[in-house]
């Protein structure tokens, strides 16, 4: 018994010596354990960026429309992996067709984008795309904010939880960079692919027509140039986007019977605005 126990003890140690370093490194790199404090910092940063988005385009003041877009977002959020976020949506008062998002769950859809939509599934598709930029922390990773533990999400706490001018300067610089990504540079192509494909998975999981974004892009790609000029500048081509969305629908088996477009409810809220 004693010999068996000793043998077992030695053999238990051997793998940890051989593989433990490997396992720890992998866990450290892959496991992004995010604390409540990290999320609060993410929301605080995103809130400031949201205010700057509204500095460029004011809020379209319509309470029933604002409630409606928020209900769509909150309902989608129940099907996603950021349950701690209160996704908050505003409609921007501009004819430009576009959507924006800031860390922490702030989402914006333009009035122009909504005017070009025909149903709730298309609205859900655009909102879901922006939600995925938030969920996947695209701006966080792009800003290369790192805390002491390799987790990009923890970087916000590190950056804005401290005091002093150096920290504040870094914070304002990060805000300016975030706005630059949103309005000038655009996201990386891989991030746009992720937002389109995961956004489509999200709306399909919620029960909406998974082809909604395809329908919407087919419609607006031939539209008025001045309304889509910024959208085209900041995103890959519509044809590319339609292509990878269709691939995602096929690969994940998202199609089928029973998905909703939500035409009636959408018209009830939107069309009566005139």
């Amino acid at each position, binding site marked *: 018994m004693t010999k068996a126990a000793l*043998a*077992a003890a030695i*053999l*238990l140690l*051997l*793998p*940890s010596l051989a593989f433990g370093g490997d*396992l720890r490194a992998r*866990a450290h790199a*892959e496991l*992004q354990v*995010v604390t*409540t404090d990290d*999320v*609060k910092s993410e*929301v*605080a940063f995103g809130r*400031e960026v*949201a*205010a*700057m988005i*509204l*500095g460029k385009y*004011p*809020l379209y003041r319509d*309470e029933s429309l*604002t*409630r409606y877009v*928020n*209900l769509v977002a909150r*309902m989608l959020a*129940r*099907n*996603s*992996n950021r*349950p*701690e976020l*209160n996704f*908050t*949506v505003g409609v921007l008062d501009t004819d430009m067709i576009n959507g924006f998002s800031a860390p922490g769950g702030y989402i914006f859809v333009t009035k122009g984008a909504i005017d070009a939509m025909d149903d*709730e599934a298309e609205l859900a598709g655009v909102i879901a795309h922006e939600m995925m930029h938030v969920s996947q922390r695209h701006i966080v990773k792009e800003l290369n904010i790192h805390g002491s533990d390799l987790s990009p999400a923890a970087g916000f706490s590190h950056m*804005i*939880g401290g005091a002093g001018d150096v920290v*504040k300067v870094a*914070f*304002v610089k990060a805000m300016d960079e975030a706005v630059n990504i949103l309005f000038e540079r655009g996201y990386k192509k891989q991030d746009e692919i992720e937002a389109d494909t*995961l956004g489509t*998975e*999200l709306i*399909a*999981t919620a*029960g*909406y027509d998974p082809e909604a974004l395809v329908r919407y892009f087919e419609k607006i790609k031939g539209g008025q140039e001045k309304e889509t000029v910024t959208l085209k500048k900041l995103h890959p081509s519509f044809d590319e986007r339609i292509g990878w969305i269709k691939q995602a629908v096929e690969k*994940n*088996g*998202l*199609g*089928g019977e029973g998905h*909703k477009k*939500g035409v009636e409810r959408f018209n009830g809220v939107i069309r009566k605005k005139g």
Partner: protein
Amino acid sequence: MKKTLMLLVVLLVFPHALFAAESVFVQSVKAKIMGEPNFKSKELGVAQKGDKLAVTEKGDGWVKVTAGSVSGWVNKLTVGDAPPMDKVSIITADSANLEGKSRKRASAMTSAAAARGLSDTERKRLTDEGKANYRDLVEMEKIAATIGDREIGSFADEGGVQ
């Protein structure tokens, strides 16, 4: 001797089984467990928010898990590495007016959150320069803050979505 040998064989072949097996936790309200990494395959079960699922394989956008006697695939969008967090907010419905001549102290911010982000002075500067609009931000937050779980549930039910 036989028992010792058996133990040695098991430990040599499965050393990783002795160490932390990877798990994921359901983040969404529910997560369907499918027979294949595809929503058109057979649905084997449904996991609930907070359920801990043991990971046996990773795919492209999917994770193979075991939950009790069920072994199947969940979509990565519905799971995460840690148990789901409660809602995190730095804003309450009673938001502050940060613009204009009569500025009130932001009672909406927690004492910890108040130390985050920009100061009131910096926000006023950005507003005066036309770079930021906190008034509209507070307006949209106020509207969103009035939406509760029950209303979201009804909205989903009425629309035939979930």
